[in-house]
């Protein structure tokens, strides 16, 4: 009897050993949203980038905490303020077998402005390039029209295309306003074909069926470590409930962004949860330009112009309670616009929760009985956004600021926000570059649409000193010097309560217990970085 049991157990182990490798051949991922195109130069959007980074690679790349690493370029240096030299990796093959050379880099930069109907163009990265020239087959010199310290960081988001696969001539030369030797440039729909979507990445594109699935398979000639999976399938499942159900039922091996409230249930089912602090800050912005709409009890004045009132609002908010109760622990109270120790942060303390001091400040500002205000918020953009806004309203009510929450769908919210319809609003900002100039430039710089400054600064915070320091930072090549300037600028704005940080969102992934994934700050789900620990589930 005992022998029989042992044999049976041995048979199970053997069966397990046989099926485990077969199982590990395919990885199926349930995504929250779908890529809009397979053309890596069509739409500058994180849902596209995370999928395409399996197939294509840039000259540089960012690791899980957005530190810059070599990719197709092995090293780079600033020759002078306006010139960068990139040394290219040798022995890299494209999926179609052709060699990777400087010609492919030049072709890639040349094609960016030629992409038609792009909803969010990559020209923001190439617009400053006055020249891109080969220095032999394996080096490229890029000249910009002014100092551009972020160029290596930005190139991580610009994947390199194959000049051969896209039909370029043997000689491609860069010129602003029209390159030569480009041949017939294929437009975005052509990239649905695996013959055109040719990169150097660890996986080759097999099939892309819009709304259904994206299939990729292992590229045997990959220059780096051999990819883990024979085949990767990515399925868009945009509704939260069905995405969780697909994981629980075993239809997919891994999902991104499970709803926070369902996490205990997913864990009970024996699945693994990984999470990481993201680069997305949730903040409150206040109208600081003359008369604000939707206010009451202030005799027509805008109380938000007074720094004491803004400080009172910040002190009235119990960020710990929001992170704990509303975000289920998947958020971290924020003291600045990016979580330390990311580039440009200054380890600033989170504003304390002090409702008594907030009341005093309101009284000092001349509003002992508070006032009425409307808080605008989207209700489907950020994690539990509407609930967070309600909690903020609740806390403001306790210090005497009667707050009405006006919640609406994201598209409606953004257009009303940009029309400055809210005296105070809740929104979020994810820094794609992973450093401080991104939120400072968009959220706090004085509004100037043509210069691309303060484009998301609907509260119209404005400080000349801040602008001056930020402008200097954006043209400083030296990293240490630039970081100090960014810290200074950030401190100026936060000292004046020009913006009120609430919390950093945490990004969550759920997967089968035998998988592992290093959670990424940029919230990307990259299939080639999913590992199988090789042990069976228990």
């Amino acid at each position: 009897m005992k022998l029989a049991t042992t044999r049976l157990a041995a048979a199970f182990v053997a069966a397990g050993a046989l099926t485990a490798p077969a199982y590990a051949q395919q990885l199926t991922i349930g995504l929250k949203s779908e890529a809009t195109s397979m053309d890596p130069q069509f739409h500058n959007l994180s849902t596209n980038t995370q999928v395409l980074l399996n197939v294509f690679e840039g000259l540089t790349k960012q690791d899980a905490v957005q530190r810059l690493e070599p990719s197709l370029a092995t090293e780079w240096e600033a020759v002078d303020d306006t010139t960068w030299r990139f040394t290219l990796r040798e022995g890299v093959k494209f999926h179609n077998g052709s060699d990777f050379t400087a010609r492919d880099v030049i072709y890639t930069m040349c094609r960016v402005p030629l992409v038609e109907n792009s909803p969010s163009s990559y020209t923001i990265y190439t617009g400053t390039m006055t020249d891109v020239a080969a220095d032999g087959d394996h080096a490229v010199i890029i000249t910009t029209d002014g100092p551009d310290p972020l160029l290596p960081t930005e190139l991580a988001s610009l994947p390199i295309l194959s000049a051969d696969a896209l039909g370029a001539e043997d000689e491609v030369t860069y010129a602003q306003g029209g390159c030569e030797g480009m041949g017939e440039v294929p437009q975005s729909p052509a990239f649905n074909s695996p013959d055109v979507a040719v990169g150097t990445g660890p996986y080759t594109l097999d099939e892309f069926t819009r709304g259904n699935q994206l299939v990729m398979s292992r590229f045997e000639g990959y220059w780096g470590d051999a990819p883990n999976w024979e085949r990767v399938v990515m399925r868009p499942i945009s509704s939260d409930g069905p995405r969780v159900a697909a994981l629980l039922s075993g239809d997919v091996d891994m999902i991104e962004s499970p709803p926070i409230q369902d996490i205990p249930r997913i864990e009970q089912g024996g699945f693994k949860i990984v999470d990481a602090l993201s680069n997305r800050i949730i903040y409150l912005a206040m109208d600081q330009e003359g008369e604000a709409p939707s206010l009451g009890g202030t005799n027509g004045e805008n109380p938000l112009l007074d720094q004491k009132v803004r400080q009172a609002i910040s002190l009235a908010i119990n960020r710990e309670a929001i992170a704990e109760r509303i975000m289920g622990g998947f958020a971290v109270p924020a003291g600045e616009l990016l979580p330390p120790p990311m580039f440009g942060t200054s380890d600033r303390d989170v504003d304390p929760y002090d409702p008594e001091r907030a009341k005093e400040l309101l009284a000092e500002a001349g509003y002992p009985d508070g006032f009425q205000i409307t808080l605008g918020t989207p209700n489907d953009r950020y994690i539990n956004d509407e609930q967070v806004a309600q909690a903020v309203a609740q806390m403001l009510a306790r210090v005497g600021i009667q707050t009405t929450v006006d919640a609406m769908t994201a598209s409606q919210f953004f257009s009303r926000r940009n029309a400055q319809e809210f005296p105070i609003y809740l929104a979020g900002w994810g820094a794609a570059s992973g450093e401080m100039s991104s939120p400072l430039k968009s959220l706090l710089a004085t509004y100037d649409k043509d210069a691309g400054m303060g484009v998301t600064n609907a509260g119209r915070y404005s400080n000349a000193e801040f602008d001056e320091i930020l402008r200097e930072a954006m043209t400083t090549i030296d990293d240490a010097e630039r970081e100090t300037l960014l810290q200074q600028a950030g401190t100026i704005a936060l000292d004046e309560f020009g913006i009120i940080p609430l919390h950093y969102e945490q990004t969550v992934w759920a997967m089968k217990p035998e998988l592992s994934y290093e959670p990424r700050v940029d919230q990307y789900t990259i299939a080639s970085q999913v590992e199988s620990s090789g042990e069976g589930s228990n």
Partner: protein
Amino acid sequence: MTDRSVASSLEPVITTKPLEVESPFRRIARAFVEDRLAVLGLVLFLVIALAAILAPWITPQNPYDLAQLDIMDGGLPPGETSFATGGTYWLGTDQQGRDMLSAIVYGLRISLLVASVSLGLAITIGVAAGVAAAYFGGRLDALIMRVVDLQLSFPAILIALILLALLGRGIDKVILALVIVQWAYYARTVRSSAIVERNKDYIEAARCLGFSHRRIMFRHLLPNCVPPLIVVATVQIAQAIALEATLSFLGVGVPITEPSLGLLIANGYDYLLSGRYWVSLYPGIALVVTIIAINLVGDRLRDVLNPRLQK
């Protein structure tokens, strides 16, 4: 023998016929109470209505006063004690720390307020339009009835959604949307019974006496159209409550800081998978019980008021 039996069987019938005339209201009331289920419905409805009216005095918390909420009390299951006040949450709390019992009673208050105000306005408009259409006939009739037809050809929820998408959130806007959606039902009902009555002799007589149109329409014609109107109204008030709940559930109804039953259910919907059933369940039960109570009353009224169904 045969003659006598016929005579004796006829005699009591003639003698026992009551002499006093029973008022129609008493007759209806007497017939109504014969159905126990309908009485139960009526009692339930009265209890709910009373609770809704007295909400500020009988609930432990004002769920619409943000300063009374504490998110540290958020998501507590039924029967838990509050950290802030030490009180007990008999039906638990939602994510914002709102006492579900108080929120449900206040939610009922909104539901009934919205339903009754919109009912009153819709009946007023619908009856005026319906009686006028039937009485004057001709072009006015055609015009009003084509508008009614046009409106009835679209689903009520669709029209209400479009209206609220244009108007924005708010109780007043929900009421406006419900009035616009519902007046057509009353207009249609009143017109059909008014057309029957219009050609009867007493209307002819009233005309001959030289009464004004308005007096004939509202003093003579309208009272005889009331029974079907009552039946439609009871069905429609339940519809109005359900429609308001649907609109709020879809997020276009009342403001989120002043949730009605539909919005409470929507808020709890996200937590169903994670086991916080009480946020959706109890408002759902309150909504179902209210609608069933009104429908029981409405069904019985229809039976009592419909001459064809009378024994």
